[in-house]
């Protein structure tokens, strides 16, 4: 099932499919490790629930929900 990263719940490991857009933010997301095929998981969040911290490619990245929504992920069916 494909969804966007901001909707990913804790404890589920998803695979990055694509990053939408070609503005600097999208490019930065790709450079920082959100590339097709990488596995991602949600590891934490700010007290307000936004931004969210993700684990991708051996590093941890904090993203706002609006940024995470650019990232399309594949969640394997359980």
């Amino acid at each position: 099932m494909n969804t966007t990263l901001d909707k990913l719940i804790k404890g589920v490991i998803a695979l990055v499919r694509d990053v939408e857009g070609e503005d600097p933010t999208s490019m930065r997301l790709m450079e920082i490790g959100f590339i097709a095929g990488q596995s991602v998981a949600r590891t934490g969040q700010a007290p307000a629930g936004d931004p969210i911290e993700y684990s991708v490619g051996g590093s941890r990245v904090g993203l706002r929900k609006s940024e995470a929504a650019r990232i399309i992920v594949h969640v394997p069916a359980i």
Partner: protein
Amino acid sequence: MSSKLPLEANTKPKSRLLGVVALVGNPNTGKSSLFNALCGMNAKVGNFPGVTVEKKTGQWKAFDGSHIEVVDLPGTYSLAARSADESIAVEVLLGKSTKILEHGYQSSKDAPGDLEPQPDCVIVVVDAAAIERNLYLFSQVRELGLPTLLVLNMWDRVSSDSDLTIDVPKLSESLGVPVLTAVASKRQGIKEIQRAVEEMLADRSTGSKRPVSPIQPDIYPPLFLEETQELQRWLLARGHTVHRFEVSRLLIDAGGPIESYWKHVLNSGSVSEQKDITGASDAGNDTDGLDSKLQSIRARLKEADLSVPRMEPKLRHAWIKSTIKEAVRRSALPVVTFSDRIDRLLTHQVWGLLSLIAVLFFVFQAVFASIGTGWLSEQIDFGCETLALLVSSTIPPGALRSLLNDGVIAGVGGVLVFIPQIAVLFLLIAILEDCGYMARVALVMDRWMSMLGLSGRAFLPLMTSFGCAVPGIMSARTIASRRDRMVAILVAPLMSCSARLPVYTLMITTFIPTISYFNGWVSLQGLLFLAMYSLGAVVAIPIAWLLKKFAFPGPTSPFVLEMPSYKWPSWRVVLSQVWEQVRSFAVRAGTLIFCTSILLWAAAYFPSEHREENQLVAKLESIEARSGEVLRPEIAPASDVDIEAISMRINQLRATSIEQSFLGRFGRSIEPVFHAVGWDWRIGVGVIASFPAREVIIATLGTIYSLGGDVDEGSESLAEQLRASKWPDGRPVFTWVTALSIMVFFALCAQCAATLVAIKRETKTWFWPVFTFVYMTTLAYFSAMLVYIVGSQF
């Protein structure tokens, strides 16, 4: 092109320069740690992105006695630079920097610095635990065609991690460059890196040529290579020999810094590098020419499914994946690390916020608790007193003695007493930075920052400003959005920096009663201290909102921030930072504050008549000396009366002489301005003198009160002198209201020349420092007035 500038001719070090090596890498991979280890230097290291915002150079000695220059660069994820600190790395690597090394090169004014050579060799520093992502930058750097060395730093994290294995020889083979491992923070693997660099540089100088066609055909499809060649030829026809790599960046980074650079160059028609090549006469239309050229090429690429800029990450990641698949093995699943578990707590809905508050409160409490209790401050105090006594006993009363005691010792000594507190403050800040918590603070604060229209990233410069606004303002370079960056720069000086600490301390401990609540857990003094510390930050909220709304309107910028993993702070890093800060504080006391103290002393001493005063002091001292020696009880009563009468006369004389001095006349002529905030002219003059640096107030008050105050100055602390000072009608000058209005003024006022200069440097105009100065001073004055008016009602 190579660095065949007359290097040896005009460099300062005596030994031969073997070459220049640049350290590049993603943020927080240990570049500065490696730099320090390589050069035995002390660049600032910290466990959050954006600590290094300037390039910094150092050197080490090679085996043959020559030396190697090292340039530490700000971290970047990509050579498609998107923020001010990142573009420094790009400029240096492309040889466009105006001052890559401190010494020697002439730089041209009109062209933005084409004369600087590229470095001779590049060390790409990667975090081995996140090697896949880090190789993105490597794949760009190697296209520069410079000799490149890959350093797998943080090797300790890989060897303890069973989910990741890296086969170093295999990696080196498939990447085609030497690969070394290192633990920069523990200084492991440093010698090997030095040897490897020396070898690479020696190879270069013995004549084996650099690869000339550095764009790697293994990444880009043929069409792209053809198009870059086409653009390169187009530029050559206009008289510019441009490196293939730069051409590719020009093509890919639409609207990026390279594109604007070339537009600028073509527009101004300045052919800085190849003056000898003609043919650039029709320069007027070249900007439009470049625009349409780029557009047509980009359109062709798009048709071939290679639309820029998206094609770049795809191609590079594909290359990384295929290149390292033999050498790097990682378990497919993300692992939950120890760091993640800490994060669960520290970014938790409830605990996250509470821990942030607790941490901040602990910092304040610790700094507050260190007031006046430090062994060091007692020693400094004691030292000052001893010195003053020594001066009094060896130098006769007069201008010289007054200069030393009232000017220098009362001034500079008064400031040095605060060293322990400054040390504690910076110790805690350094620990917070190095353990990795700072980035979490940015994450936790993002929500509130975005209400102001800023991103959580803007919180880091503000946090740093609690230590000192100058590095805070500089670290705002890591904020990609210009608008956010400006807002952060303009409110950073409101954060309560370490130089305000002495002012708060003096005022609070002298004029606020020691009342405590909750069985001594919370003290009134402590609460007030906290309040003063928060005041600037609280006031910054509406100011930032107003600035963002009216001066720099724009959408809320995105938040993408890498979270470094938690670790134990390294003592080397922490202590060297504390040392650095304490040292600069002491240097300031010895230079700026020293000079201000002397100037102020002179203004307060001259042109008054001091003859009678000096005679009386001499007389008094001889009486005291005699009664001390002889110790005959029967003559004591008589000399007691004498002493009292003489002391009173001296005090009178001193009070009039300071009032009639230049300073006194000036101060009293503008006294009405200070009356509105409840200050007498002495405080007012002290405040005016402390506009270059706010901690000067301690020194100036020390000097003013020491000159105009009690006779036995050696025994009286500044606090006691302040308590004793009176208005002409006999009311005490200092009450808690006065103290509060002074503190509020200092909390909000822009009394720091260094900060204003930093703002000028970062914004490149004098408008913004002037703006900051005006808004902060106005704000400070009226807030102090409000405090005084409201406070006087009680």
